[in-house]
């Protein structure tokens, strides 16, 4: 596969993002992705400064994570691991995915989901399982992931499933190759929201994904999930803590989540993940939105954003009404 996003390209983009250079692409339009790019740049810079010490090793591992490429997706690996995903999804999470028929049978599509579960987003695995069994592992499917996730050892396990570092280049290339791309605009902000906000769609005003869909002319398919934020007791995003500790400057990480989770009890940062509670997960895939057909030739991004968030919130409220008890479902 040609045109791989190399480490140097990534670092250049990250450097540009750090220096406030507007490249006119997704990095500048999509705040969540831009933040992730900054994070990568921060870590890469940290590695360069750390040299051959422990910091250098960590940074090299991070850089390898950032070099994740679309070609790392391995359909055979996905196929052989579907039984494991199925076991966990069926027995532990009692997962249910509805409306997969709303996803266009072929061609590129941008799947836009609400993100839940902290650093162990169980609903993402459930959706990956459901998508792969429904359409077959042969259909290209990529998930845009936070750089930090891909930098951790677990990131190596995610790459064969199609997880790639969230970047303008990766998203555009994946869509151009006809892939279905799953993006969580809310990113780390939404995934670490407090448990009492679990039934709220919170994209934090990030609209770059709409620009991406318009630019590539692909439909948006909303994917609404419930139950993921009940896999632990999420207390706070810890954005002030991240700022006080300087982590936002050092690692470009805006949150330092605090939760009550197994096996740590008090879990600060969630860097090592946690054992999720067996919360019932339900995912509803909504009908595809053809932006130009529904909003005209030159859609207003704010209008599309408001419509999409309202539609997803409406569906989430319906799923809430179906749910009798937290965790049990």
């Amino acid at each position, binding site marked *: 596969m040609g045109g791989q996003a190399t480490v140097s390209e990534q670092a250049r983009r990250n450097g540009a993002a750090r220096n406030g250079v507007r490249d006119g692409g997704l990095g500048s339009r999509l705040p969540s992705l831009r933040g992730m790019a900054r994070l990568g740049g921060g870590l890469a810079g940290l590695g360069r400064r750390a040299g051959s010490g422990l910091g250098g090793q960590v940074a090299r591992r991070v850089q390898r994570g950032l070099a994740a490429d679309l070609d790392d997706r391995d359909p055979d690996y996905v196929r052989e*691991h579907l039984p494991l995903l*199925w076991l966990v999804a069926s027995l532990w999470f009692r997962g249910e995915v509805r409306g997969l028929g709303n996803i266009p049978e072929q061609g590129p599509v941008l799947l836009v989901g609400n993100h839940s579960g902290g650093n162990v987003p169980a609903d993402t695995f459930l959706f990956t399982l459901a998508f792969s069994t429904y359409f077959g592992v042969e259909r290209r499917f990529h998930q845009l992931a936070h750089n930090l996730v891909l930098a951790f050892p677990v990131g190596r396990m995610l790459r064969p499933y199609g997880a790639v570092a969230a970047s303008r280049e990766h998203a555009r290339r994946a869509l151009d190759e006809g892939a279905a791309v799953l993006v969580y605009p809310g990113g780390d902000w939404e995934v670490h929201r407090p448990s009492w906000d679990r039934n709220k769609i919170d994209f934090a005003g990030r609209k770059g994904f709409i620009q991406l869909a318009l630019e590539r002319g692909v439909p948006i398919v909303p994917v609404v999930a419930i139950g993921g934020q009940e896999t632990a007791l999420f207390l706070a995003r810890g954005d002030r803590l991240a700022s006080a500790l300087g982590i936002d400057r050092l690692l470009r990480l805006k949150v330092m989540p605090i939760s009550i989770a197994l096996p740590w009890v008090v879990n600060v940062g969630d860097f090592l993940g946690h054992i999720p509670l067996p919360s019932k997960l339900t995912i509803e895939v909504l009908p595809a939105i053809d932006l130009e057909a529904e909003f005209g030739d030159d859609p207003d991004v704010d209008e599309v954003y408001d419509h999409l968030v309202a539609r997803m919130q409406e569906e989430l409220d319906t799923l809430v009404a179906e749910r009798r008890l937290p965790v049990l479902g």
Partner: protein
Amino acid sequence: MRLNESIEIAAPRQLVWDYVTDPSNCLHFMAGVTRWEVVGEQRTGRGARYRMLIRVGSAEVGGLIEVVEWQPPEDMAWSSVLGVDQRGRWRLRELDDGRTRAELRYAYGVAGAGISGWLAELVSAPQLGDHLRRSLRQLKRQVEHERLRSDAARRRRERSSLAA
């Protein structure tokens, strides 16, 4: 994992054969099946291909299958081309009193999945077995109902021809 279920149907074998091999009937009697679509020009016979999905646990599994054996009105077998590894077979045998014994065999798995694949086969077997049993019961009900309707229609035709 291999599953095997059978049932006796009070209808001639040809009627049962016509019913089970018509792809448009599959969604009506096969329990758990959420999709059964003809892929390509050929609807039935050896070489016909279908895209099928069956709900098991948290997922709809299946894929592209192809009819690999076609011996009307006795045996029809299919095998997977894409998706979960699977083989299925309809065996229809005539009984003495004009009844038919319908047997549905289904074998499935994921090659190379190791112990998790073996566990998944084991865990899914009761649910799939239940799907098979319900499918056969629905087949029996629908074919026997179909037979009653066709018999009644034949009697009406005979009566009207006599009256004429």
